[in-house]
């Protein structure tokens, strides 16, 4: 069998799908094209028990293709308007993969502002649901451009999503309701399961060195004992991704739509 050609976006979709493995019957929310395709692929392969919506207001048992649907008719199985999403969040029955603007060494995230809060350099969306999502259920991160601008050296400018920084918590606050999954970036897959929740690289994408990840991360990262290469998509997975993304929107998510299999020179150029 020949190894199929695949793009970096497709590699990241497969890596994102792994984040949703063994989660149980939770609502899988992939925000953005690559996370959404990852969650959809998870449901179509190893984790059919996941709950999923049409990204609007209905539950579906068959993930809906992204983009214009043509002849495709969604098969609805239930109703999930925003208010019910909130109810689900508070009960902790969800795993969201989100794309924060900044992430720090404590896995805290920022979606609000860059710079001084009262007169920000850049005002973004606002904290949205991050405070509530992050303290109530599992959250993973999607980072299309792994850099020190995203993985910042100090604390994020406005802590919108909770993390592991002890000073932010009192002893009487419940911390067991939060959880951090993985960060799927264009260089690697990381988690925060090192000693004292240190950031840990669990797999490197083809052609990426650990040193290159460290150089592009604003805080120290460690290598997982089982550090290996991120799994390449199989032919079956690629066919399903094609079916879920018939308009190839995935090709537009990463700058230049790089190949998944690259040499170290190509990665670092």
């Amino acid at each position, binding site marked *: 069998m020949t190894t199929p050609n695949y793009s970096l976006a497709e590699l990241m979709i497969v890596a994102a799908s792994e984040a949703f493995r063994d989660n149980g019957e939770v609502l899988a929310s992939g925000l953005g094209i690559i996370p959404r395709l990852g969650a959809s692929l998870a449901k179509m392969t190893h984790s059919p028990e996941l709950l999923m919506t049409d990204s609007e207001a209905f539950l579906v048992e068959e993930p809906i293709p992204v983009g214009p649907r043509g002849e495709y008719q969604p098969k609805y199985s239930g109703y999930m*308007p925003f208010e019910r999403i909130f109810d689900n969040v*508070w009960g902790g029955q969800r795993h969201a993969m989100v794309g924060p603007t900044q992430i720090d060494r404590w896995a805290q995230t920022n979606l609000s502002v860059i710079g001084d809060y009262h007169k920000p350099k850049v005002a973004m969306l*606002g904290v949205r649901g991050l*405070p509530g999502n992050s303290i109530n259920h599992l959250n993973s991160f999607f980072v299309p451009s792994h850099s020190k601008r995203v993985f910042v050296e100090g604390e994020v400018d*406005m802590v919108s999503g909770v993390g592991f920084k002890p000073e*932010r918590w009192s002893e009487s606050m419940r911390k067991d309701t939060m959880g951090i999954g993985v960060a799927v970036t264009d260089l690697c897959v990381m988690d925060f399961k090192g000693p004292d929740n240190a950031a840990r690289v669990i797999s490197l994408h083809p052609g990426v060195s650990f040193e290159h990840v460290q150089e592009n991360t604003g805080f120290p990262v460690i290598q997982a004992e089982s550090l290996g290469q991120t799994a390449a998509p199989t032919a079956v997975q690629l066919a399903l991704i094609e079916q879920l993304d018939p308009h190839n929107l995935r090709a537009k998510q990463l700058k230049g739509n790089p190949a998944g299999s690259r040499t170290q020179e190509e990665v670092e150029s």
Partner: protein
Amino acid sequence: MNKQMTSAEAVGHLKDGMTIGFGGWGPRRKPMAIVREILRSDVKDLTVVAFGGPEVGMLCAAGKVKKLIFGFATLDAIPLEPYFRKARQAGTLDVMELDEGLFQWGLKAAAMRVPFLPARAGLATDVLTYNPDLKMVRSPYEDGEELLAMPALYLDYAFVHVNRADRLGNTLVTGVDAYFDHHVVRAAKHAIVSAEVVEEKLELDKETARFNTFERSLVTGVVEARFGAHPTICSPDYGWDMKHLKEYSDGAKDDQGWGVYFEKYVQGGEEKYREQNGGEEHLASIPVPTF
């Protein structure tokens, strides 16, 4: 029991410094005809409460907003609301930035007439840092858990846009999501509903009556506003007008942009607004987007 009024009569009730809330969600089913009426009025120093879309940006651009209570402001397909961003970056806007769920909790506390509701959302984040007025509460039970006491968000006026209404204040939201309009309405002393169609009296079958999401006793005014949510989505009647939103958004790059927009689209009233946007037939044909 006839609560029908014009949008000018509805907005005429507003006084400087009032707290007003809007239904809808981002660029979805916002009471924009009412917003345009507010833009034409002299009212100022408003505290605006919303899951924000273009209404937030426009009211900021017009200098009507003293304080914004929000979880986000976005046009979705255009992620950053341009005039919200401008006001925020100028450092002139007083803000109470909340988690989306806390926001709902504040409205619900007001609706229940309790001073606060406990929540976990917001703990261990800068939502606490930058809202020093938010206080903590400890569970009086054995667990002793420390929680955030989300204060009631009382509104003087609520404005929501619905698909159908009658003169009595009965309403139907036939789009796929009722959002949080019922919470906004319940948190307010007065609630004004604008509707695509206002009938004498709704006469419905059981299936259709389920699209009613709050009782008419909460409604103090009903305004007929065909295409009253434009340029936001009013599913299933019409979609968002991306061409219009792009023009609005691009205008923010220019110092004169808001003035140009106001003159072209707001100043002349709703009939002219519909003409400027291609006429009723065109507006009705704008497709609802797929997500």
